[in-house]
């Protein structure tokens, strides 16, 4: 048994390299840039993400395996890269002025954002469970730090500690699951697991327990009930720009890895895993929506809403097959756009470090900031799943995938849940347009970068709501390897 160094094919890693080097350059650049030139760092981050997007587009259609099958390059990975780059670009845009007021140490911030994007990419490209684990840790470790970025603020410290303790706890379950699957199949490489399971013998208990533990680990990361307890606290306590990044980024990465592991590597076990995920999906949707009804803090409300959306995505996972995976990819794009858009509006409306976090703070804004309020209304409509937005199309595809897979009850429960959710999503809109403000706030010009983020997200939300065909086509191509 000799150790043979794997031959490294760089093509599958090509889209990750700009992000990795961008992160390092941001860290080093911070040392040498004079205090007045720090704006260069986010620009560098945006440039490296743009380069990564170009590489991903250039590689579209290639299928390659590298480093002993541990890293996979396929359309699914490339589509996920594009989603992560979008999330990361919007997050950097909405952080640019949000940070200036509060933090002088920007180099770390942007390099951590880039490193966690790199972790997401590794998760989506992981052909080996250990690579997925390493990606997950890279993503999480950077995010723990970002949550605690405001060192002097107790809420930020608290969010970081809670996230770290529960995240590390969940990671060990995830890792134990990997260990048991390794014991049952003799490998952690997804391709060889597929080959091992292909002969149709009944799965061993060890394998089933391992899969269950893996599901627990993923459950924490996507914030599904009953592993959701950390979500509202962490999302409320973290700096708003970080919450926006987390809410869209971790969910996208965790679902990309879920699809990769459960739909691509373990579809033979679908009989066994679809029942528990069915239950998780129902609980997650229902609890997320019901608790969101009574939230007054808008960040907490969006945190519970993100739990509910994890439920909708789990519905698509249960539906499985190519329609389920396609609708997951489409929904992740819609979800990222509408959530980052809503957070960009919150950040654009902040005045001198005073954020509008309670729903009542939005009273009367409809007439004082007409454009931003209209955009906020658009994002809320999209989150609620009303046409003509991307959120509506995403939900439509998810529920039709569920019906196609003969999960009619799941589709009905999902639709009922979306009806409930309309109430709390429309509340800020009603308050903006119908209520008189209690106190007059001075009008402060908004950050230009955050306005850009709002505009991009609003355009995307409308574009994919009105003309979903092209994006759906890309998503369908990306999961073509699934078959079915």
């Amino acid at each position, binding site marked *: *048994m000799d*150790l043979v160094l794997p031959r490294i094919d760089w093509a599958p890693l090509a889209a990750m390299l700009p992000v990795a080097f961008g992160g390092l350059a941001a860290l080093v650049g911070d040392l040498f840039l004079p205090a007045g030139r720090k704006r260069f760092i986010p620009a560098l981050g945006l440039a490296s993400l743009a380069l990564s997007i170009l590489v991903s587009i250039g590689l579209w259609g290639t299928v390659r395996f590298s480093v002993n099958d541990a890293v996979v390059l396929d359309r699914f990975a490339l589509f996920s890269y594009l989603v992560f780059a979008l999330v990361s670009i919007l997050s950097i845009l909405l952080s640019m002025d949000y940070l200036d007021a509060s933090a002088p140490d920007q180099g770390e911030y942007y390099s951590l954002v880039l490193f966690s994007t790199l972790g997401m990419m590794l998760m989506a490209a992981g052909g080996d469970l*250990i690579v997925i*684990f*390493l990606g997950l*840790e890279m993503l999480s*470790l950077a995010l*723990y*730090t970002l949550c*605690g970025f405001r*060192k*002097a*603020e*107790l*809420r930020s*410290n*608290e*969010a*970081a*500690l*809670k996230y*770290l*303790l529960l995240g*590390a*706890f969940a*990671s*060990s379950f995830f*890792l*134990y699951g*990997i*260990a*048991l699957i*390794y*014991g049952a199949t*003799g*490998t*952690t490489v997804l391709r060889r697991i597929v080959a091992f399971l292909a002969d149709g013998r009944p799965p061993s208990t060890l394998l089933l327990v391992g899969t269950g533990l893996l599901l627990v680990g993923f459950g924490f990361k996507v914030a599904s009930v009953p592993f959701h307890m950390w979500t*509202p*606290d962490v999302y*409320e*306590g973290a700096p708003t720009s970080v919450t926006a990044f987390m809410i869209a980024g971790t969910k996208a990465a965790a679902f990309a890895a879920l699809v990769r592991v459960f739909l691509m590597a373990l579809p033979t076990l679908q009989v066994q895993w679809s029942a528990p995920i069915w239950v998780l999906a129902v609980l997650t949707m229902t609890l997320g929506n019901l*608790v969101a009804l009574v*939230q007054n803090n808008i960040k*907490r409300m969006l945190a519970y809403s993100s739990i509910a959306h994890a439920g909708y995505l789990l519905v698509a996972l249960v539906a499985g097959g190519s329609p389920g995976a396609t609708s997951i990819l489409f929904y992740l794009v819609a979800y990222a756009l509408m959530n980052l858009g809503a957070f960009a509006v919150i950040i654009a409306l902040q005045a001198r470090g005073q954020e509008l976090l309670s729903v009542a703070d939005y009273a009367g804004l409809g007439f004082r900031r007409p454009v931003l309020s209209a955009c906020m209304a658009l994002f809320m409509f999209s989150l609620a799943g009303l046409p003509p937005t991307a959120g509506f199309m995403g939900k439509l595809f998810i529920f039709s995938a569920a019906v196609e897979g003969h999960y009619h009850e799941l589709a009905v429960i999902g639709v009922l849940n979306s009806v409930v959710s309309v109430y709390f999503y429309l509340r800020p809109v009603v308050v903006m347009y119908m209520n008189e403000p209690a106190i007059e706030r001075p009008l402060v010009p908004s950050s230009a970068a955050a306005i850009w983020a709002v505009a991009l997200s609003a355009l995307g939300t409308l574009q994919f709501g009105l003309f979903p065909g092209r994006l759906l086509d890309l998503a369908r191509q990306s999961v073509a390897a699934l078959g079915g």
Partner: protein
Amino acid sequence: MRGAGCGVRGAMTGTVPLSAYLILSAALFAIGVIGVVIRRNALIIFMAIELMLNAVNLTFVAFSKFLGSMDGQIIVFFVMAVAAAEVALGLAIIIALYRNKESVNVDDINLLKG
């Protein structure tokens, strides 16, 4: 790397069967979980999480020897590196919290409640 030369059969003709390793590591993992759930000191919770990770490492090494494949032992190095990074970060966060709060008891950390 004694197990490397032994192969599947040779590794297990010793006195300790695979199941013993698996039961030991499951027990260690369970002790870790209980520690996380019942202890209130953030540092102790952190130690319990480390115990869980090391229980998993034991599983990996036991399977690696049993299967005669080196992968499991390599994975342990990855896990150790990740665990070290997690500890460094965790202690930094706990120190940042202690500077503001003068407590590492998770029951005192209650600003954010739903």
